[in-house]
């Protein structure tokens, strides 16, 4: 019931007229984990009553300790996993309207960068000419035009992740789900990708649900931060990030940035303890 309060807070912050991209109500998810040799199982509660309502066009960070169920929640929103209780409504339901970026780039090694980016269009049967134009545009947006004909194994980690983002954006999705996409990259590369992602979001205004365990990254990127507790995950903090919308690399050095990050850290620690 405490959770109802959180979502009421979100409504108060954002107003009620804005259409919702995602509406999550009372979601619970259990997993059965095998224990021992003879088929014995243990039930683990991953998500314990999640209520979350996400405005269309907003950038929401989902923060929580490792293994708390953030990814599970994201997979449920993507339709890749099911709920045991509760409902999830996603406004964007047509093929290609929801895009997912994994923690690793997960490109197909036997395809060139351009062919990887073209994959979602190919699976939907988009005609070749239209496909080529969309791929070209997506590659330009992540500055990978020069690497179009190269293969994933020839690229750096940052370039692979940019290709992965281009693949996600090529269908012009309405909802972009990102599961710790930059966690495996070095700090500088991650900063650059964060800035590029923000620029793309400002240009296209898709809704972003960004899972991370990095507080500074969440603070820099998100309009709104939702903090989950350790397993079983409950929402322990849900508030707007108190920073101006126009953020640049310099924002990371400002006192307001440190304050906003501090708030998130405090609620993360409270949720973990």
């Amino acid at each position, binding site marked *: 019931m405490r959770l109802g309060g959180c979502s009421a807070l979100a409504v108060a912050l954002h107003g009620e007229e804005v259409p919702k991209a995602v509406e999550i109500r009372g979601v619970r998810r259990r997993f059965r984990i095998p224990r021992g040799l003879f088929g014995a199982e243990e039930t683990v509660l991953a998500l314990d009553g999640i209520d979350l309502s996400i405005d269309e066009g907003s950038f929401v960070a989902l923060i929580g300790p490792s293994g708390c169920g953030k990814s599970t929640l994201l*997979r449920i929103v*993507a*339709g*890749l996993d099911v709920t045991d209780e509760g409902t999830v409504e996603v406004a964007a339901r047509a*093929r*290609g309207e*929801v*895009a*997912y970026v*994994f923690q*690793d780039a*997960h490109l*197909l*090694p*036997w395809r060139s960068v351009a062919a990887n980016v073209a*994959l*979602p269009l*190919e*699976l*939907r049967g988009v005609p070749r000419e239209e496909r080529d134009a969309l791929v070209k545009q997506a590659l330009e947006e992540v500055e990978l035009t020069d690497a179009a004909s190269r*293969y994933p*194994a*020839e690229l750096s980690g940052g370039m692979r992740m940019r290709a992965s983002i281009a693949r996600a954006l090529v*269908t012009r999705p309405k909802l972009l789900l990102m599961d710790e996409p930059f966690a495996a990259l070095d700090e500088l590369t991650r900063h650059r990708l964060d800035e590029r992602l923000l620029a793309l979001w400002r240009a296209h205004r898709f809704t972003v649900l960004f899972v991370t365990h990095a507080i500074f990254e969440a603070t820099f990127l998100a309009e709104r931060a939702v903090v989950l507790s350790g397993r079983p995950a409950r929402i322990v903090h849900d508030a707007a990030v108190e920073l101006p919308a126009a953020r640049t690399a310099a924002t990371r050095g400002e006192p307001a940035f440190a304050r906003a990050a501090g708030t998130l850290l405090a609620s993360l620690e409270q949720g973990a303890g």
Partner: protein
Amino acid sequence: MSGSRSFTAVTLPPFVAAVVGLALWEGAARALSIPAYLLPPPSAVARAAVGDAPALAGACVTTGLASLAGFLASAVFGVAIAIGLSSSRVVERGLYPYAVALQTVPIVAIAPLLVLWCGAGPRAVTASAFIVSVFPVITNSLAGIRATEPALRDLFKLYGASRMQVLLKLELPHATPQIATGLRIACGLSVIGAIVGEFVAGFSEGSPGLGILVMTSYRQLRTDLLFAAVGCSALLGIVMFGLVSGASSLVLRRWYVAAR
């Protein structure tokens, strides 16, 4: 420069070993006057190889064609069976034990059946080559398909890919390195299967294969020709292996670009 040196470094030791080994064999056979029907010296084997070159070449072609046909059947049916087994866990559980059983029954025991069904001759020999070589193709292809990364499956699911799209654009390309491994094992086995098949089923009107040549030279105590035929079998296996390895490394070049 360093390239040619490493080529020499790779080819010289086995060459030297062969020369020394053959010289010792020749020397021992002469010095101890071992009867030629027990252990003919390499020079006698070489003479037999030259003297019976037409018979050996014909045998290589006969056995080679049968193993190639058996191998191609293994490649096609092995991958197809793996796709079928991978389509559902129930199907796999139901049928996989029999694939294993097929593998454990000695081919020599099945060969008479093959003669009954196909008649003595190339068809039975090809069937024998197929039965011996199909199993590694099935297991390796199945393992490759099963090992497809779950995240990539999720990606295809997210974009509403059909079963056929998942198979053709994800599972088969993903399993290609493992399928290639299966094929490399299978091509050597197909030569073994063909020769064993010939022991039982190889007698027919056409040009006799290597298995027949081994049997007849054994019965005539032509041990020199027997050695030459064994050498040809090994050569045939090596050629098959080289062809399949070469073809697979051409296909897999993109996969291993990272290893360059």
